[in-house]
Structure formats: C-alpha cells, structure tokens
C-alpha cells in the first residue's frame, strides 16, 4: 500500500495494515526465479526446436520461421489451457509461463472460455482481450511513439 493511501486511514486501520504485512507470507523469490528460469527457458527451447523444424522441412529461412513458430506455440498453449494443464504449470512457474508468448495466448483463451456462459458476442467476444488487452494497448502505443520519433529523426532531420 502506498504512503498516500496510508495517510487517509484511521489509526486502527493503520494498525491493521501493519498486522497484515507481518502475517503476509514471504515470497520465495529465489525458488520462484529458478522455476521461472527453467520453465521459461524450456518454452524458448521448444520454440527454437519448432523453428528448426520449419526451417528444415518447410524451407522457411531463419527470419520467416518466426511467424509459424509463434503460431504453433500459441496453438499448443491454447490447447493446454483448454485441457486445464497450463494453469497447473503456471502455478509453479509464475513468470516462466506468463512472459513467453504462450502466456499471452493462455490469458486470451482462458478469458474466452471463462466468459462463454455469457454468450458468444458479449461473453467471448467482449472479454477475450480483458487480460491480454493491456499488452496490445501499451505495445502498440509505445511502438507508435518510438517509430514516429525514429522516422522523424532519420528521415526528416537527416539522422544522427
């Protein structure tokens, strides 16, 4: 809780906040990091293997193999989300499953499945980006600003 919010609380509420902070279990940061490293690394390793597969058998080159690789990983992750396997892995691996593109697919698929009971248009269509939308919004906005600055600097100001 931030200091600004703390000032507004009554003394008893402050006492309670301190009490909560003491009782909150310490997060096992090192253990979590090791899990995240191993699982995240494994997912990237699988991705590398898939892209090697596409380069070898379907004659993609190293650059164009990225797209089918990402699509395949997304497919696997959505399938595992639907079967309920992904969340079990995610509980242990934390960021190891959230940071790779599979986590993005998992967020979308789980939101879609969860809200299906509200109907296909309002439920599935409306909620699909509920969790994953922030990534797209901030990604696109920052990319827009960066690309704009870069274009102006390199094209119109003659570069550095």
């Amino acid at each position, binding site marked *: 809780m931030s200091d600004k919010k703390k000032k507004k609380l009554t003394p008893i509420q402050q006492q309670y906040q301190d009490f909560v902070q003491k009782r909150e279990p310490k997060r096992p940061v090192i253990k979590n990091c090791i899990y995240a490293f191993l699982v995240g690394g494994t997912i*990237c390793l699988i991705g590398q293997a898939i892209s090697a597969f596409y380069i070898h058998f379907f004659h993609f080159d*190293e650059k164009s193999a990225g797209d089918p690789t990402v699509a395949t990983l997304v497919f696997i992750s*959505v399938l595992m989300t639907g079967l309920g396997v992904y969340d079990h892995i995610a509980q242990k691996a934390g960021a190891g499953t959230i940071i790779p593109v599979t986590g993005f697919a998992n967020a979308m698929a789980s939101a879609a499945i969860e809200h299906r009971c509200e109907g296909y248009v309002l439920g599935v269509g409306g909620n699909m980006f509920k969790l994953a939308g922030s990534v797209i919004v901030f*990604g696109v906005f920052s990319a827009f600003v960066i690309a704009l600055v870069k274009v102006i600097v390199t*094209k119109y100001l003659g570069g550095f």
Partner: protein
Amino acid sequence: MIFFWAFVVGGMICVIGQIMMDVFKLTPAHTTSTLVVIGAILDGFGLYEPLIKFAGAGATVPITSFGNALVHGAMAEANKMGIIGVITGIFEVTSAGISAAIVFGFLASLIFKSKG
C-alpha cells in the same frame, strides 16, 4: 549452440519478469505490459535484432519480442510509404501471434467448458 542460448536468454527474460512480480509486487498484467514497452524501446535503439540473431527463439518467444515486432512493422512500412506507414504497418509483423491467439482462443471457447 543456438539451442543453449535460446534456453539461457529466454530463461533470463522470465527471471526478470519474476523479479518484477515478486520484488516490486507488480501484477502479471503490469509485468507483461512493461516488458512489451521495454522490447519496443530496445528495438528503437536497434538493440533487439542482435539479440534475436544471438539467441533465436530465446528472444522471439518472450513477450518482449511483441514490442520489437510492432516497431519493426511500423518502421518497415514507414520506409516505404513515409510517415503514414507508422500507422498502417504497425501490426504487419505481429499478425501471426495475435490472429493465431484470437482464432485458436475462439475455437477453444467453442470446444472447452469452463472448469471453475
């Protein structure tokens, strides 16, 4: 050798995410959004492409590559069409990930039932 570096670099990016979540107490949504912005900034300085050359899928699979790909698409289109290309080209490269996620996610909602 690229398999080894894919594992190490991909794992390290995930560790950075884990530290952001555990030490700085960010939610997963904040963490992924921040990493996407970091990826976009790195590509703005031309630093992400060497990482992809070095680590392969270790750099393309984590969500940071999403920001990188957005900038890349925008820049490629901007070089062809001028400043308007920044808007028209932004999804050019990331299309695979997003459309795959939408299509498969929708199919999953047709097939699977919520367990909660």
